[in-house]
Each structure stands twice: as structure tokens, then as C-alpha cells.
């Protein structure tokens, strides 16, 4: 049972110092979680610390590959609106 960081991570460093198990480490192209050390903060904190400060929706997944911060949950931007805006920008 471990969390993982995927490619949408922007290497902002917010999670790294918070991990009670030092499971998060700086890596290229993005930070990674050492699955052997990660406990999902079980027994230490009510919420997984990395996922509680991560500003990027979808960057941290649980053991079932589900996003702990799904699209729209952090920025408040409805996903369809974001897709619309990005499509508009790319058309330019």
C-alpha cells in the first residue's frame, strides 16, 4: 500500500518536507515516492500529507491508481471549462 506521484507533478517541493517517512525524493523528471517507505500516513495523520498540500490535481494516485485530488477539486476550475480554455489557447 503506497501512494505514487505521476508525470503531472511540477516539482514544487511542497510535499517533500512533510512526509513523515521520508518516502518522497527529488527525481527527474518529477519527484517520486519510495513504495517501500510510504504508509499513506496511516497511523500518523488523518490525511496523506503529500496529497494534502499538493497543488496539482491528479498528480498523486492511491494504490488503485485513483487521484487523491481529482480534477476540479483544488483549483475550483470545472474540468470542462479548463479543457475549453486550453483548446481555445491552442487554436491561436
Amino acid at each position, binding site marked *: 500500500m503506497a501512494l505514487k506521484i505521476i508525470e503531472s507533478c511540477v516539482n514544487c517541493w511542497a510535499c517533500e518536507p512533510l512526509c513523515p517517512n521520508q518516502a518522497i525524493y527529488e527525481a527527474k523528471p518529477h519527484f517520486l515516492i519510495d513504495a517501500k517507505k510510504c504508509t499513506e500516513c496511516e497511523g500518523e495523520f488523518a490525511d496523506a500529507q503529500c496529497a494534502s498540500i499538493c497543488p496539482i490535481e491528479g498528480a498523486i494516485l492511491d494504490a488503485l491508481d485513483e487521484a487523491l485530488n481529482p480534477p476540479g477539486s483544488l*483549483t475550483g476550475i470545472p474540468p470542462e471549462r479548463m479543457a475549453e480554455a486550453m483548446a481555445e489557447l491552442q487554436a491561436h
Partner: protein
Amino acid sequence: MELKVLGQAEPEAPKGGCSAGSCGSTDDQLSHLPEDIREKVHNHPCYSEEAHHYFARMHVAVAPACNIQCHYCNRKYDCANESRPGVVSELLTPDQAVKKTMAVAANIPQMTVLGIAGPGDPLANPERTFATFRALSEQAPDIKLCVSTNGLALPASVDELAKHNIDHVTITINCVDPEVGAKIYPWIFWNNRRIKGKKGAKILIEQQQKGLEMLVERGILVKVNSVMIPGVNDEHLKEVSRIVKQKGAFLHNVMPLIAEAEHGTFYGVMGQRGPKSSELQALQDDCAGDMNMMRHCRQCRADAVGLLGEDRGAEFTMDKIEDMEIDYTAAMEKRAQVHAAIEQELAAKQAKPQAPALVPLESLGGGSKPRPVLMAVATTGGGVINQHFGHAREFLVYEASAEGVRFIGHRKVDLYCSGGDTCGDGESVLGGIINTLEGCEAVLCAKIGYEPWEMLEEAGIQPNGEHAMEPIEDAVMAVYSEMLEMGKLDAKTDDQETQATA
């Protein structure tokens, strides 16, 4: 085609700085402050409007993490409002930051201030931030240190800040009401949890206010930055200004929201607009009260280097610094000399009586006051009109009135003429510049081409290249006097209508 500029053979303008008074106003912007505070800020480019023409500052980007989310910030590109470093910014370790600071301070002896402003929140990265301060207060004791924060972790950091001889702190305070706060901050990270909405905003506000009070108690100067978000906190910022002044903040800096869709921020994507220059100016005037507003802020990047409005960051990337050989002792001596020379120049300026710019106005005024006029000025610094219209990336806006000349702010524009192939886009860029100069009735520059001249005139903005290399305030007042003589200032006030018909 270039129009001939009259007065080009004028003798060289005084080196650096405006000729009379501060660039901020005919009155010294800091004159109302107690002596001990003046002493702390007189050579700080971000706090003293006058100092920013002479003294340089730099930021070191050692603080990547952030503990709150703002709707005007997208962490993918760093903060859109308070810095714009983007993905190319070089994140530094404290050791690298110290090395870079020493290298810059040796090469730019005008440097007085080292700040940490992100790209996240410095106090959300206390170890990296304080390691940098600790080393610098030992190795470069003549450099002032300052820090900019969202305030969430501030109360916990105040004592540590006080230890490192930091006498300036900037707190970004956008609201004092959690209802408003919930529209700006979707969440904060507090006591190991993410807290959303009004509850999170309430905690943030409490911490900011507590931090402000604690800093003031310890005699640390506090500047408050606020981002003006039309329809969200614009009216509310007057209340913010009143409260922070009451609690002892010494300067309030109201900045315009930057919300381009391509930044991917909540406000950008959701179509929240930024304020117009005239709206920003009106709010700054409303907030002014008994405390001066900061109007020369350039919303610089978290890794900016040099004078405000210029960025010499590219000269000091880590690989370039590695190759530099620096004699620290010699550099500090050089700085002391350069700073002393600037101080002398400033003192000489203050001792000089003001130019008698107002005399002709009084003699022509006929009892009623002429209306104030906004003018835009193209300058590369030094307090003189010395830039080609087409080369300007920003215009400084001044207000001329019967009371004198006062600095209103700067307005950024896209470069109209970048030469060669790109000139094809000139037309549309020029349209943008004209929009940006909304409200201005004249634009003063060193030179201007025929086409922009015509378009500006059509838009009701009079181009003027007659005051090239002259001190800004004198030139603005001269143009104002001319307008007065030509009867251009009569139209808009009631009592002058009567005067005109008399």
C-alpha cells in the same frame, strides 16, 4: 520616418535621478515618516520611490513550496502576480543563493537589498530561507535582507526573522473578511490538513493580522501588498488599507490582478478581468489617506536582479557565477563608496530649492484651478525623458495639476518597434499601447515615428518629443503650462466654463 526632435543638442542630463524632488511627488514621499523609519528605507528600492532610481535589489529563488492556493496563481508556472519566473527559473540551494548574492553585489555595487520572495512562500520553506539569511547576515553585513510572505506561517517565524536582522517584511493581504477570502483562496494547508473555503480563509486572515501585529511590536517594518481583483475585493481593499495602517503597516501597495487565460490560473481560465489603469489609480487614491501608497512596484519576479524595471538575471545564472572570481572585501568597500556617492547626490538634490515650475500657473490661473492632466513618459530611468516611443516597454504616468506634478504609476506595454521583420505587427501593438495609455492626454518621449504620432493624435493623446533628455517633472510641468496657455484646460470644470465665457 522620424520626426526631428527639438532640443537634442541639450547638454547631458544629470547622471541618474530626477532633477527636483522625488519622482513620486514634489513632496518627498517619505517625509511624513519618523526619522528611524526613513533611515531604514531611504536606500531600499522597493520602499522608497526615490531610491528605486539609484539602488538595486535582487531576489534569490530558494523557496519553492507554498502552503496556500491563490486563485491568481498557478503553481505550474509559479505565481502569476507576485512573480513570473515560469518553468525556466533556477531554483537555488541556500549555498548557491549566497554565492549568487555575493557575485551580484560585487558586480552591481548599487545593490542594497537581498529579498526572498518565493517562488512559493519563503516561510513555508523556513529551513532554506533562514539558512540563506543566516549566511548572508554574516558574509555580507552591509546588504539589507527582506522577505515577502502570504502570512500563514508568519507568527511562527517572527522571532527567527528578528534574529537575522531583517527589518523589512512584506505581507500579501487581499482581504480581512473570510467571505471575500473564500473567493480568492480555495484552500490553505494548516495543522497537517488541507482546509477549504471560508474556514481556510479565516485562518489565513487571522495569521496575517497576528503576524502584522507581532512584527510592528518588534519594530520590524511591514509593507502590505494587495492584489486588486475587480468585483471580488476592489471595494473591500479600502477597509484592508484602513486596518493595516491602523495596525502600523507603513506602506500599502495595491497591485493589479494579472489574469491571462494562458497562465492557467482560476481567474485566468474563468475570465476574471484585471483592473483598468484608471480603476487601479482611483483605488490607490482612495486607499492613500494618511499613508503613502506605493506606486512604483513592478511586480517583479522571484529571481529578479538589478534596478526595479530592469532585469539583469541572465547575467548571473549559476554557470556564469561559477566562473566569476570575486574579492569579497574589495566588493564591500566598493559598495560603501558607491552608496556614499549616491547618498551625497541625493542630499545635494534635497538641498537644492525646487524649480519654480508653478509660477506661470499661478499667474495664469485667474483664481480658479485648472483641471489636472495625466501624461505618459518614456524613460529608461535616471529621471529624464530619454527613450524612443517605439522602444518603451512601460510608460510612467504623471499627473500635472495646479499643485504640481505627482507620479501615478507605470503601465506596461508590448514593444511597438522591435525592428526588422517584426514591425509588421506594429499596428495592432500600437492599438494596444493606445488602450494602455487611456486617460493620458500627452505622451512625452525622446523621439517618435510619424505613424505612431498620427495614431496617437487621432486617439486624443498628444505626442511630444520636444523635451528629450529633460528631467521628467520639469517637462511635464512645461507641457501642462503650454496646455494651460492654449486654453486646453478650461473645458471640464464648471467654474472655468463661466470664466471662459467672461
